[in-house]
């Protein structure tokens, strides 16, 4: 048995070590934030949020259409991916103890490990080629494919957390299985599922690779699902690889806007989940 004094010293030393590890881990995050904010904040203005991009050499212009496009494409992705992902998750939780359930779970695991650029190619083959044009829809499909596996797994976990006693209470009242699944089990897990959806939306909004050759880009406003559509991420990519300094500045500002968008979505998700456990 070591003496109390030795134990205190070891405790202090270990705490300091953990603190150091934390500081080192925070360095890249803080410097990234600092870099984006310091370089991007100068370019922010009202027009930056509302205008379409200006041609090379002209000053002004903004990424309004890209912000709208990102929201539009992510919206399409949600419309396709959320019902599929949540539905699959409920199935896995309720009927997943079978061969089919294991197969779905395995597929979801493999799918969540597929690089996002590959998902982009798949959406290109599935949607862009048959339609013979780049479109917001193709981008939405690509994002949906990315969202489904994580959404399915987290929904499954959340539905499994619903106590058996609630399910039994409903069944004992003469409520059929499917109504019990939908109106008691899913309803009870809904708070958590909303959080999972928000977090996967936040992840999807930050994706560039699957959008590069699906929704492509657009210099103008577009609300048609069958037309190429601008997105913040692709716009940042285009600006960043261009040879013009002013476009580089715009890329930084657009990156800041994206960071704010994704950050506020994640924050909303966390707040929602915290309220659930109160």
């Amino acid at each position, binding site marked *: 048995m070591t003496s109390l004094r030795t134990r205190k010293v070891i405790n202090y030393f270990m705490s300091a070590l953990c603190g150091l590890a934390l500081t080192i881990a925070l360095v890249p995050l803080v410097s990234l934030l600092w870099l984006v904010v310091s370089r991007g904040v100068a370019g922010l203005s009202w027009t930056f949020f509302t205008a379409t991009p200006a041609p090379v050499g002209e000053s002004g212009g903004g990424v309004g259409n890209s912000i709208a496009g990102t929201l539009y494409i992510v919206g399409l992705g949600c419309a396709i991916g959320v019902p599929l992902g949540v539905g699959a998750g409920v199935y896995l939780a309720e009927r997943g*103890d079978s061969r089919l359930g294991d197969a779905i779970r395995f597929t979801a695991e493999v799918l969540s490990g597929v690089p996002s650029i590959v998902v982009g190619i798949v959406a290109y083959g599935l949607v862009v080629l048959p339609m013979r044009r780049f479109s917001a829809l193709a981008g939405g499909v690509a994002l949906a494919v990315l969202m489904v596996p994580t959404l399915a797994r987290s929904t499954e976990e959340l539905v499994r957390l619903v*106590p058996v*006693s*609630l399910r*039994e*209470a*409903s*069944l*004992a*009242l*003469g*409520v*059929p299985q499917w*109504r*019990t699944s939908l*109106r*008691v089990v899913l*309803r*009870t897990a*809904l708070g958590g599922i909303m959080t999972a959806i928000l977090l996967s939306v936040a992840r999807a909004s930050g994706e560039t690779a699957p959008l590069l050759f699906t929704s492509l880009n657009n210099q103008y406003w577009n609300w048609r699902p069958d037309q190429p559509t601008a997105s913040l991420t692709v716009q940042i990519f285009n600006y960043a690889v261009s040879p013009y300094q002013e476009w580089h500045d715009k890329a930084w500002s657009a990156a800041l806007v994206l960071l704010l968008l994704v950050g506020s979505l994640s924050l909303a998700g966390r707040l929602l989940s915290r309220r659930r456990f109160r």
Partner: protein
Amino acid sequence: MKQKIEVDGLNAWFKNNHALKNVSLTVPENSVLAIIGPSGCGKSTFVRCINRMHELVPGARQSGKVLVDGQDLHAKRMDPVDLRRRVGMVFQRANPFPTMSIFDNVVAGLKLNGVHGDFPALVENSLRQAALWDEVKDRLRHSALSLSGGQQQRLCIARALAVEPEVLLMDEPASALDPIATARIEELIRELRESFTIVIVTHNMQQAARVSDATAFFYMGELIEHGATEQIFTNPRESRTEDYVTGKFG
């Protein structure tokens, strides 16, 4: 007297575990049957066979006949969903729906089945029957979780009564409650006996003696003895029953 529940040669299994062995008994209409016995003797399994909740457990099987009102529960035409509307159940731990208000919990059996409308009279009536109305009438829209444990259990009883069942199964309804809440539930059982047939599982022998007309003693999945409550507690035929009710084991 008319027999409400007739059980004949009932066997139940969980995978390879033979949980109920050849149980036969009957319950007359508007009477209270108490089921006593040590833990793991098949008490809960028995009541869960009467509303076919037993078969929902993965790997569970059963054989033998259970009749409610002379109708075989396992006849092809018998729909378990329909049956459970006639045979209500109250569980050991209060399990109100956490996302619903007190009001909505009472009418959950209707609303979850897609019956639309507002049912203030039904809610009041059910809550009065469950002796909870006076305590909650001013906060019907509050969350069901704002109630105390005993109140939650009475809410669950009100919820079971609101679908107007004929039989009420109670699986240790007072085991998680304090003596005062328990006394209220027992009083309630004696009142409900007027209009329902009740089967109550209990660990508490005094409770069985206080509330029931007949008592059945289960041991290791077998029905050891079944008779009038007074007889079981004062003059049991079987020595094992006597040992259990006098506290020698269990």
